[in-house]
C-alpha cells in the first residue's frame, strides 16, 4: 500500500514538472523579442537579417517550437540543461552555484515559520476565547497584509541605512571570510521579512483547525471520562495538524514565488534572483533550468508534506480515502 502510494505521488510529481516545463517553454517563445538578438546581447541592434538567421539556424531556433521543446526535454532527461546565452557556462553549473543559497533561505524560513506558527497557533487555539486567541486573529491579518517588498525596504532603511548594523544586500561580505556568521548577517533581513509576513497566517490556520477539532464529539467524550488533558490535547493537535500541513502544501508554490521577490530585493544570490535576471536578458536555457529547479523544490516539498500527512492519517494508510 505504502509503496504504491509513494509510486503514485512520484508519478504525479513528474507529470507536474512536465506540465510546468511545457507551459514555460511555450509562454517564453510566445513572449515578444528575438532569442537570437538576446544571444547577441548589447550589440543586438547591429545585427542584420542574415546574421540573425545564421544564429537562429545554429541554435535550431528556426525549428518549430514543439521540436525545440522535444530536443530540450530529451537533453534535460540526460542531465544536459544547455549553456547559458549570457554567461556561456553550462546551466547546471550556474544553478548549482545558486541552489545552496536558495535552499538555505527556503529551509531557514520554512523552519522558523513552522516552529513559530505551531507555537502561536497551538497556544491560541487551545485557549478559545482568551486574549491569545483574539490577539492572534488580529495580528495574523495585520502581518499577512504587509507586502514583503515594502517591509523589506523598511528593514533596509532601518537596519542598514539608519542603524548600519546589517548589510542591505548580497549573500556574503567581499572582504569577509565567508563563514557562517558572515552568512547569517546577510541572511537575517530576507529571512525575517519572509518569516514575519507568513508566520501569522499559518498560525491562524492552525489555531482555527485546533478550535474546530476541539469541538469534536470524541473530545467531549474523553473529557467527560477523565482522560488526561495532555492526551486529549495530543490527539487534537495530531488531527488538527493534517489540514494545517495541507495548507502549507497548498501555499508552498506561492511561498516560493514570494521568496523570488525578496531574493531580488536583497540581491540574495539564489535561484529567484537568477530566474528574474534570465527573464530580463531572455536567457532561455538558464530560465528553463531555473524554472525546472524551482519546480523540483516545490514538488519535493509537497512530497515530503504528503509523506508526513500520510504517516499522521491512518485513513490514508488504510486506503479508506484516496
Amino acid at each position, binding site marked *: 500500500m505504502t509503496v504504491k502510494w509513494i509510486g503514485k505521488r512520484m508519478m504525479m510529481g513528474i507529470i507536474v514538472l512536465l506540465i510546468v516545463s511545457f507551459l514555460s517553454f511555450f509562454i517564453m517563445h510566445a513572449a515578444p523579442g528575438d532569442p537570437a538578438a538576446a544571444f547577441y546581447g548589447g550589440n543586438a541592434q547591429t545585427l542584420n537579417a542574415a546574421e540573425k538567421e545564421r544564429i537562429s539556424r545554429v541554435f535550431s531556433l528556426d525549428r518549430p517550437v514543439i521540436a525545440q521543446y522535444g530536443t530540450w526535454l530529451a537533453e534535460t532527461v540526460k542531465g544536459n540543461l544547455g549553456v547559458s546565452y549570457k554567461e556561456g557556462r553550462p546551466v547546471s553549473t550556474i544553478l548549482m552555484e545558486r541552489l545552496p543559497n536558495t535552499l538555505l533561505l527556503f529551509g531557514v524560513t520554512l523552519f522558523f515559520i513552522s516552529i513559530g506558527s505551531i507555537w502561536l497557533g497551538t497556544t491560541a487555539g487551545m485557549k478559545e*476565547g482568551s486574549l491569545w486567541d483574539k490577539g492572534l486573529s488580529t495580528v495574523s491579518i495585520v502581518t499577512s497584509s504587509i507586502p514583503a517588498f515594502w517591509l523589506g525596504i523598511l528593514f533596509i532603511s532601518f537596519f542598514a541605512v539608519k542603524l548600519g548594523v546589517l548589510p542591505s544586500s548580497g549573500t556574503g561580505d567581499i572582504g569577509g571570510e565567508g563563514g557562517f556568521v558572515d552568512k547569517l548577517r546577510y541572511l537575517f533581513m530576507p529571512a525575517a521579512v519572509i518569516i514575519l509576513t507568513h508566520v501569522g497566517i499559518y498560525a491562524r490556520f492552525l489555531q482555527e483547525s485546533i478550535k474546530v477539532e476541539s469541538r*469534536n*464529539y*470524541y473530545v*467531549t*467524550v*474523553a*473529557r*467527560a*471520562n*477523565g*482522560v*488526561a*488533558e495532555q*492526551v486529549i490535547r495530543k*490527539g487534537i493537535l*495530531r*488531527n488538527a495538524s493534517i489540514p494545517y500541513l495541507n495548507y502549507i502544501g497548498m501555499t508552498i508554490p506561492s511561498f516560493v514565488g514570494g521568496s523570488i521577490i525578496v531574493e531580488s530585493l536583497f540581491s540574495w544570490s539564489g535561484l529567484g534572483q537568477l530566474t528574474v535576471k534570465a527573464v530580463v536578458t531572455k536567457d532561455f536555457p538558464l530560465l528553463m533550468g531555473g524554472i525546472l529547479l524551482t519546480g523540483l523544490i516545490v514538488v519535493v516539498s509537497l512530497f515530503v508534506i504528503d509523506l508526513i500527512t500520510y504517516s*499522521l*492519517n*491512518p*485513513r490514508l494508510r*488504510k486506503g*479508506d480515502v484516496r
Partner: protein
Amino acid sequence: MLSVRQLSIDIDGKSIVRNSSFSVPLGKITSIIGESGSGKSMTVSALLGILPPGAKATGQALFNGKNLLTVSDKEMTEIRKIHLFTIFQDAANSFNPSVKMRHQLYEFSGRKMGDTIEEFRVKMEGILDDLGLASEIMEQYPFELSGGMLQRCMIACALYMEPTLLIADEPTSALDMVLQKEFIGLLKRLNEQHGTTILLITHDLDIVAEAAHDMVVMRHGEVVETGSVAEVFDCPKHPYTKLLLDSRF
C-alpha cells in the same frame, strides 16, 4: 448515591431545565425518560461539568457528599477519572479516529486505574473476549469498527473500571434492534454482577421497562414524575406519563 435537588440550567438567559429533583439509588438502574428537547442530556452535561459555553447550572447535585455543580475543576477531573464513567449516544464518533483502539481503551480505563500497559492488555483482552470482541480490534482504528462494536468497547471500559456510577446517555439510539437488546443485556449484567449503579438516559419506554428499576420522567425541562418502574407503569400520575404509556405498542 446521587441526589439532584432544584437543578436549573440556563443557556444565554434561556431556561432549559427548571427545578429538577431526583435521586439515583445505590446499586440500581435509574432511567431518565423524556422526548427530545426535554432537558435529559443537558442534565447529564451539568452533572459531568461539560455544559456548553454560555450555560449555567444552579441547584445541587450531591454525589458521595460532594456537590458536582460547585466542585473545583481539579476535584471534578478526579471524580470523572475514578468514580464516573459515561457512555454517549454516538459511539462511532466517541473515539479519536487517528489513534489505535489499544491506546484509547487504555486511556479510558487502564491508565486511570494506574495499571501498566501490560496489565491493561491482559485484563482488557479477557473483557473483550467476554463481550464477543476479538483482541485484534485493539490494533485497529475506530473507523474500521462498526457502531455496535465501538459501543461494546465503551462497555468494556466500564467493565474494566467498575465505576461508582455509570451514566449512559441514549447509548442505544444509534444501534439496530438486535444490538440494542444486546447492549441493554450488558448494562443489566454490569448492574447485577458488579453492583454498578447506572443512570440510563433514553426516550424509549421499552428500554426502561426492560432494564430500569426506577424512572424519572422529564418534559419541557421539568421533572414531572419519579418512582419505581413498576409503580409508574401501574399507576401513572402525570398526564404526560399516561400519554407516554398509552402510546406504547
